């Protein structure tokens, strides 16, 4: 009875929360209902680790009824239309945009919004006949996405080739100044013309998008059919990710006696429990829900179960290394000492080997193993930096910083990234910033984001938020985009606005 009353109070709190829009209220209620269930097969030890903050399930819900991230094959959708949605293949730009917006509405995810909207430049470019008309339509398309996909984890891709549609998208985004969709240039200096890449830098300095993904690196790991979804997650198109759970390395280090205890006992054991937890969630989704047998995306061949994978996430490498160094009686700090960085690499090698040795029957795409993911942090994280990033406030000179980050990006085919805001003077020479991005790819950077220190739209950790929306929410006003809540939390807890601004 006590549990019932507790649940009733939870529901009442959601319904009475004045800052939630109708849609946000509905989604919170759905989560409350789902969490009445218990995921079968979760090892007992997981719950203690969860309470101790060693493992975090990102509040995914106890009974996953759709995959966390879905990347539909939009090209195929254009070729064949959809029987379920009663849509024919588009013949005009107007039809192409209408079809996409309809399909987006039906692509689930952990946030209930589509986290991947396709290579939108290539999808739309063949339909462009008149550029002025195309701009009007594409601007409306992007506006519609921002106001109805009210969540910044929605991600579009452009490039690596320059297209008319790509240029129009950049122009529109600079005019619109919206946080959604997030945007990534799949960048290959050998394919992407410099003038288009420079236009992307200019847009990024103006509206914090696009980011730059190391196309060659992703291509070599994931193959041609990949996309960047959600924050910066590299995933197979026509597939996606079942789930994402994360190790809180900063807390795991605190639970260890010393470095030896961490490397030999605490970390391996936590990894094993997290793998078993992920096994249980994936098994539930695949075997006990009808998603992979009944959803039209599967039935129409827009996604394949075999192209989904589990994402093994982690955060807090910086604080983890610093804590272990302290426990060894040393003052070395992550990013500031060769030994500290080497310890970080040693930890990554251990995690990679241990995770790869665990096999899950539903992870065929990645050789039966989970993919590593440098999780970008959540709004309640305190004293825990995203993935393997150097803590805000402890940044080092730019070239050194890029080389340091480059040591770690290779471990994360399913996503990692660093953010380097630039000042106004540097913004005057976007070609110089492009040189730095090109150089960064050569030292192992997988994903590079930038914005200008005076933009309204800024990158929080992976997603984008308008600073003006945060200001509204701080005054308890409703805002249409649900991610603003996360952005406000991150600004308060992770000092996002104190990130070092680079001047050249």
């Amino acid at each position, binding site marked *: 009875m006590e549990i019932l009353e507790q649940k009733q109070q939870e529901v009442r709190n959601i319904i009475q929360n004045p800052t939630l829009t109708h849609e946000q209220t509905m989604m919170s209620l759905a989560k409350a209902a789902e969490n009445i269930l218990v995921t079968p097969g979760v090892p007992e030890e997981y719950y203690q680790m969860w309470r101790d903050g060693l493992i975090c399930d990102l509040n995914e819900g106890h009974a996953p009824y759709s995959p966390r991230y879905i990347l539909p094959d939009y090209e195929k959708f254009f070729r064949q239309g959809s029987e379920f949605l009663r849509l024919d293949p588009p013949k005009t730009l107007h039809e192409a945009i209408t079809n996409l917006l309809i399909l987006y509405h039906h692509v689930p995810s952990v946030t209930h919004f589509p986290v991947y909207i396709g290579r939108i430049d290539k999808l739309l470019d063949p339909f462009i006949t008149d550029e002025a008309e195309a701009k009007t339509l594409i601007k409306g398309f992007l506006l519609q996405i921002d106001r109805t996909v009210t969540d910044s984890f929605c991600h579009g891709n452009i490039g690596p080739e320059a297209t008319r549609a790509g240029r129009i998208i950049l122009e529109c985004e600079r005019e619109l100044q919206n946080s959604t969709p997030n945007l990534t240039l799949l960048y290959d200096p050998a394919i992407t013309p410099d003038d288009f890449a420079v236009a992307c830098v200019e847009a990024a300095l103006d509206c914090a998008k696009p980011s730059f993904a190391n196309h060659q690196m992703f291509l070599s790991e994931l193959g041609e059919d990949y996309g960047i979804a959600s924050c910066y997650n590299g995933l197979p198109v026509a597939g996606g990710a079942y789930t994402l759970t994360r190790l809180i390395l900063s807390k795991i280090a605190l639970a260890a006696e010393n470095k030896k205890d961490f490397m030999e006992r605490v970390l391996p054991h936590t990894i094993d429990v997290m793998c078993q937890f992920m096994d249980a969630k994936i098994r539930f989704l695949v075997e006990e829900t009808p998603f992979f047998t009944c959803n039209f995306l599967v039935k129409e061949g827009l996604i394949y179960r075999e192209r989904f994978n589990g994402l093994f996430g982690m955060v807090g490498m910086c604080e983890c290394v610093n804590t272990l160094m302290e426990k060894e009686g040393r003052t070395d700090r992550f990013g500031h000492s060769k030994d500290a960085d080497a310890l970080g690499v040693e930890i990554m090698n251990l995690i990679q080997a241990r995770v790869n040795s665990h096999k899950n029957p539903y992870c065929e795409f990645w050789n039966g193993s989970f993919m590593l993911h440098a999780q970008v942090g959540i709004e309640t994280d305190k004293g825990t930096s995203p993935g393997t990033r150097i803590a805000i406030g402890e940044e080092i000179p730019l*070239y050194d910083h890029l080389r340091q980050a480059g040591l770690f990006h290779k471990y994360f085919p399913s996503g990692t990234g660093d953010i380097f805001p630039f000042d106004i003077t540097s913004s005057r020479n976007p*070609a110089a910033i492009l*040189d*730095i991005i090109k*150089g960064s790819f050569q*030292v192992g950077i997988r994903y590079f984001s930038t914005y200008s220190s005076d933009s309204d739209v800024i990158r929080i950790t992976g997603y984008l938020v308008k600073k003006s929306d945060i200001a509204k929410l701080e005054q308890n006003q409703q805002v249409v985009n649900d991610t603003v809540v996360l952005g406000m939390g991150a600004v308060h807890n992770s000092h996002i606005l104190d990130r070092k601004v680079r001047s*050249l």
Partner: protein
Amino acid sequence: MRAPVNKIIDHSVVDGDGNRTAIFFQGCPFSCLYCHNPETISLCQKCGACVSHCPVGALRLEHGEILWREDLCVGCDSCLKVCPHNSSPKVREMTVEEVLDRVEQNRPFIRGITCSGGECTLYADFMTQLFKITRERGLTNLVDSNGTLDFSQADDLMAVCDGVMLDLKCFDRQAHIRLTGKDNDLVLANARWLASQGKLPEIRTVVIPGELPNQETVREVCKMLSPYLKTTSIRYKLIRFRPWGVREPYKSFPVPDDSLMEELRQIALSYGFTDVLVV
């Protein structure tokens, strides 16, 4: 081989295209009234006048040599302010290898290097050696010059130099002498020759209302160079005079307003220059 280096900026976005490492050499044959970094004009006389003014004890005079402790220096520039010789105690005599080591640390984030000053062409042989190696490493080499070296005769240097960014301070000979202490015959000849070779990516003029014949300079320079625009692109950078770093009494020269800069920009555009930048 050694050359006196005033400083190296690892990433510069204002010394040529893209991101570059800029090397500032010490010494200049001109002494422009409006010089923004007069501490680069002369070589150190080792008089020691700066030593007692250093607030952190980073300077010493020993056996006739000035010793500068970079690790102690706080960059307050007190030494530069008191130097009676338009010089700096922080200049280092560097070898080509030492400069290359520094450049190497900045790869692969830069697309090239820029030699500036002072007047870097005083050390043309040093630059030639430096450029040969940086070019082999895939970097581009730019020179930022006042035009006092006859580039048409500097075959070895020009074989490895991708372009010269040239100061065209005044078109009128007498005005040039008043401003810099030297005539501009060679400067103008250099501008024409470099343009004809496609090695003049940028020209610059500093603008001071009332003190310099700004309109005439821009007009005549554009008239002189416009025939070359058919075959090469030349950026015209029009630079507002600013008092920072400038010596007394020239510090009080007036700063040009937007309308004057726009008028000059329009003159350049009317002669077919398409890339005119006001800074």
